[in-house]
């Protein structure tokens, strides 16, 4: 019965995802009819259509799916290990750490913006971002460590570290040239601008491996969600497992941040909606969370491209505008 229901939900989710992908392929500064899109994908498009679909829109959408899956799973993990439904990688300093390092890197002037990105830049950017986010996780862990890491203390310390890092970022932003500044602003708010197949080649394998790794150990995650004492009683080495999942979550959000910037609230929305639909078992919940996050991000990105066209606003902002009302609803809703 339950499995049946989950299957239906899964299929609906996939159909919705395909629908949004189609919508996103159609809309833009060069609009296409559905038949044209299908013809182009089947290989019968003209030069303009081929370029639009294969070089501009498809990489962007693919990247959106990858990034959203990573953030959704990352948020789901965090909510499980901190046992707090409001936890999210964007709010507890993980994304901010990545952002800080990228800002430092941009302000040190090693990238050429507005031009074609060289391959070394594409490889270096994620490395820089991952270093930053892991460092910030390390700092949070160190500061929160007091005879083991308690989830609540971890969260609160994360919020504090987030505030500190944000202050440092805004300090650096003030000293930048306008071009650098706008690049950083777009980046700190999250954007899929300039997506290319190279980004996908780099992030796709890593993120897939991480998500699969988490899924194979999702039983442990279920147990961790029950509480430290209970988990310990069931023979789970709590601290060790928590650290493992924390690192996975940080890596996932760092990878996502490295290519798409700091997209807040996505790691909150996906898992929350998924949990409401299929319950708290992570084996089914996490993939669904990834799918829902992807749908949200593609829709948000389509809106970000088209709403103020030809101006593009950072997609992270659209996600927050979508996400915050839901968040406020979560806050205000009585249990």
């Amino acid at each position: 019965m339950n499995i049946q229901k989950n299957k239906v939900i899964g299929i609906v989710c996939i159909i919705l995802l395909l629908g949004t992908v189609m919508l996103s392929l159609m809309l833009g500064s060069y609009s296409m009819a559905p038949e044209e899109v299908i013809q182009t994908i089947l290989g019968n498009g003209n030069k303009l259509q081929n370029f639009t679909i294969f070089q501009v829109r498809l990489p962007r959408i693919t990247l959106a799916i990858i990034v959203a899956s990573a953030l959704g799973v990352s948020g789901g993990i965090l909510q499980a290990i901190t046992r707090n439904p409001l936890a999210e990688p964007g709010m507890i300093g993980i994304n901010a750490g990545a952002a800080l390092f990228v800002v430092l890197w941009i302000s040190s002037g090693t990238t050429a913006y507005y031009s074609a990105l060289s391959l070394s830049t594409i490889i270096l950017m994620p490395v820089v971002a991952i270093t930053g986010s892991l460092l910030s996780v390390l700092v949070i862990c160190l500061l929160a460590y007091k005879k083991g890491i308690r989830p609540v203390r971890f969260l609160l310390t994360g919020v504090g570290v987030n505030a500190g890092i944000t202050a440092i970022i805004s300090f650096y932003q003030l000293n930048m040239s306008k071009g650098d500044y706008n690049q950083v602003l777009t980046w700190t708010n999250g954007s899929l601008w300039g997506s290319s197949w190279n980004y996908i080649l780099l992030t796709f394998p890593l993120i897939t491996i991480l998500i699969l790794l988490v899924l194979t150990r999702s039983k442990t995650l279920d147990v961790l969600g029950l509480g430290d004492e209970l988990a310990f009683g069931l023979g789970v080495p709590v601290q060790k497992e928590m650290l493992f999942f924390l690192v996975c979550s940080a890596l996932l959000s760092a990878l996502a941040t490295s290519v798409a910037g700091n997209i807040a609230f996505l790691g909150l929305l996906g898992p929350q909606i998924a949990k409401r639909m299929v319950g708290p078992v992570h084996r089914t919940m996490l993939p669904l969370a990834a799918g829902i996050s992807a749908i949200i991000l593609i829709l948000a990105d389509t809106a970000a491209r088209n709403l103020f066209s030809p101006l593009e606003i950072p997609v992270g902002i659209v996600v927050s505008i979508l996400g915050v009302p839901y968040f406020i609803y979560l806050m205000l809703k009585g249990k």
Partner: protein
Amino acid sequence: MKIRIRILTAVGVLLLFIGMIASIHIGAKNIPFNEVYHAIVQPDDSINAQLVRDIRLPRMLCAVLTGGMLALTGTMMQGVMRNPIAEPSVLGVTQGASLAVAISAVSPIIRSVYSNFFMALIGAFISGILILLFTMQRASNQSISRILLAGTAMSTFFLSLASVVALLGNRSQELAFWIAGGLRQAGWIQVFFLLIIGGFFSIAALLLSGKINLISLGDEAATGLGISPEKIKLYTILYLIPICGVCVATAGNIGFIGLFIPHIIRKLIGNDYRKLMPLSFLYGSIILVFADIAARIISAPYELPVGLFTACIGVPVFLLLVRKEKK
């Protein structure tokens, strides 16, 4: 305790006085003390006198007033929420005001100093009401982690909306100055607004301090003593919203003053809000006056954001408080 309070007050007044004088004296052009004295007592038309009258003096007064008021709002919030980490900038109230100011700065119709104040008040009001609703919804929402996450989410939201506004209006870097906080725009109009609106509500809040004392003991104790905790909470939040609004309209988003000042003062004199609130005001003023001086001289001729200095002190205190928290 009494002696401690007296010493603290005396030292505070002295420090504030030194800070005020120094703030007028130090700057891109150092003005000798005797000329400062002259410019205030018998103003003439010399450049130094004009500098003092039109730039240094209002700026110093703005620093004194916003610093004090921000510290005061933090103290009030901590009292009624019984939560050592509650503070307008942590809970998103000042960010709400910042968003409103960004909107007013970009839109061509409502762009003036007065509209800045008006918009900041509306912004602070909306975000303040949201936080109020959230904490009153149910008791568990007063737990530190829930309030904090809610506040962080709200500030993220308001700031990202402000970025959209600024990007669309092509004034993004100006917005960064707003968010970082600073007293560049301080003039006599700002002093006037701070005094009228901020002053009125600050005094109203100070009159409430006895009741905040009772609330900080716990809702049951307060009810037992015949006052309605919900009502006092409502009044306190309603008073601190306009104070936050004028502060943000004057100085942008200066964070953490309301967090660490009351915390330190509380360590020294205990939990009596009748003394805690005025002393927090005093020391908030001192910190902001000196932070503003530092912001002006450290990398002169450029100005650093004042919010950076307050964050430098605030974040460690915040982390310390979190570490000590048992649950």
